C-alpha cells in the first residue's frame, strides 16, 4: 500500500479531485499548508514597510491506495494539477505498513 502525498496550488483542488474520482479513488485528505520550493515568495507592503512573504499557501492532498494503483494516482494528480508556471508543486509516494478502518475493523486491502 502506498501513501501518495501531493503539494498543489489551492485553486487546482477541484480538478484533482475529479481526476482521482475518475480513476476510482474513493477518499482523500486535504490540509491547508504554506511552503516554498524554488519559487520565491512575493514582497508586500503594509503601512509603508516592505516585507517578504516567503511562505505561499498550498494544499496538501493525501490518499492511500493499493500499490498497483499508485502510478495511475500519481499521473492523475500531476496531469490535473499542472499549470506550467513555477510553484505547481510536488508529489511524494511513501510506503504504508498498516491500514485499519475504524468503524468495521477491516484491515489492509479491505480497508482501502
Amino acid at each position, binding site marked *: 500500500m502506498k501513501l501518495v502525498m501531493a503539494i498543489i496550488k489551492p485553486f487546482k483542488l477541484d480538478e484533482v479531485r475529479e481526476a482521482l474520482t475518475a480513476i476510482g479513488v474513493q477518499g482523500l485528505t486535504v490540509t491547508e499548508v504554506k511552503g516554498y520550493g524554488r519559487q520565491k515568495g512575493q514582497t508586500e507592503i503594509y503601512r*509603508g514597510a516592505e*516585507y517578504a512573504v516567503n511562505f505561499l499557501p498550498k494544499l496538501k492532498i493525501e490518499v492511500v491506495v493499493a500499490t498497483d494503483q499508485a502510478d495511475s494516482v500519481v499521473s492523475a494528480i500531476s496531469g490535473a494539477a499542472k499549470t506550467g508556471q513555477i510553484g505547481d508543486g510536488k508529489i511524494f509516494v511513501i510506503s504504508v505498513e498498516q491500514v485499519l478502518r475504524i468503524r468495521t475493523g477491516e484491515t489492509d486491502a479491505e480497508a482501502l
Partner: protein
Amino acid sequence: MTKTGRYIRLAGMAGLAVLAMSAPAFAQEVEEVAEEAFALSAPDTAYVFNTLLFLMTGFLVMFMAAGFAMLEAGLVRSKNVAMQCTKNIALYSIAGIMYYLVGYNLMYSGVDGGYFGSISLWGVDDSGGVASDGSGYASASDWYFQMVFVATAASIVSGTLAERIKLWPFLVFTVFLTGVIYPIQGAWQWGGGWLSELGFSDFAGSTLVHSTGGWAALMGALVLGPRIGKYVKGGGVNPMPGSSMPLATLGTFILWLGWFGFNGGSELALGSPDEANAVATIFINTNMAAAAGVVAAMMLTQLLYKKVDITMALNGALAGLVSITAEPLAPTLGWALAIGAIGGVIVVLTVPLLDKLRIDDVVGAIPVHLFCGIWGTMAVPLTNADTNFSAQATGVISIGIFVAVTSLVLWLALRFTIGIRCSEEEEMMGLDKAEIGVEAYPEFTVR
C-alpha cells in the same frame, strides 16, 4: 320588545342626548388646552432645540467609542483582539465616571480666565431657568455632550499602545487622563481659561481632544517601547498586519458618522435659523474633509508603493476629520477639501517616519490625532479671520507641553511602580490568553 328592553333603549338615547348637548363644552376645553400647549415662547423653543442638539450629537459621539473599538480590533492581530475590545469598553466607562467625580467641574466650574476650575462632584443644576436670549439648555445635556468628548480623547491612547500594554495600568492612566489632565487643559480654553482670553480657537477639539490624546499616546509609546520583533537591528521593520480589514473599515465609517455629532454639536446651539445654518455647514465641511483625506491617502500610497493600502485609506479619512475639527464652520467646501487632503498626506508620510524613529504605533493614532491635530489647529487662521497664527501656536505649544509632560511623568511613575508592559511570554502568547482569559477567535488556530 320587552318592557326592560324599551327602558334600556330610552336610557341609552337620553345618555346620548346629554353627551351631544355637552359636546361643545368639551371641544372648548380641548381648544384651550391646545392653545396653551403650543404657546411655547421663543426662548423655550431654543432651549429645547439646544438641549436636543447636545443629546443627539452627544450620542453620535458616544458611538465613536464603537468606532474606535472596531478600528483597533481590526488592526491588531487575532491574539489581542479581545484585549482591545476590553480596553475600549472599559475606558469609555471610566471616562464617564471620572468626569462626574471630578472632571467636569475641574474643567468648567469657576475657571474665570485661570488655569483650572474646582475639584468637586458635578450635579444637575437647572435652577437658572430658561435664558431669555435663547442660549439656554438642560445642564445634564451639556454634561453628557462634554463627557463623550473626554471619552474620545481617552480612546486615542489605547490604539497606539496595543498588543503589549497591561490592562490595569492602562486603565489607571485613563483615570488620570480623564479626571485631571484633559479637564485642566480643557479648562484653559473651553472652560473660559487663560487661553480663551488670548484668542486661541479650537472649535471642536483638534488640540483639546485629538492632540491631547495624541501626546498621551506618544509619551506612552516612548515609555512602553515597541512590540517584540517589530524593529530589526540595522533598520528593518517587520509589519504585523491586522486581523480584520472589514472591522477596521466598519470602525472608520462609524467614526466618520460620529464626527458629524462631534463637530456639529460643537456649535453648542440650535435655537435659531443662523445656528441651524451653521450646524448644516459644519456637517458638509466635516464630510468633505474626510472624503478628501481618503482620496489623498489613496493617491499618495498608490504613487509611493504602487499599491493602495486600505489601512492608509482608513487613516486618511480620520486624518481629514481631525484636521477640520479645529474649524469646521468657517471654511468653504473647497477649503475643507484642501484641509482634509493635507491631513491625508501628513498621515501617509508620517506613519513610516514613526517607524524610522522606532516608535511603534499600532494603528497610526499619533499621525492621525497628534500631527493632524496640530495641522488642523494651525490652519484655522486660513479660513477664520478672527484668529491669528500666534494665538494658535500658543495654544498648540502650551497644551502640548502640559499634556506631554504630565503624561510622561505618569507613564514613568506607572512603569516604575506597578509596571506597564506584559512579559515577553505573554506578548508572544497574546494578551487575550494572558490577561483576559477569553480568546477573540477561539475556533481558529493561530500561528
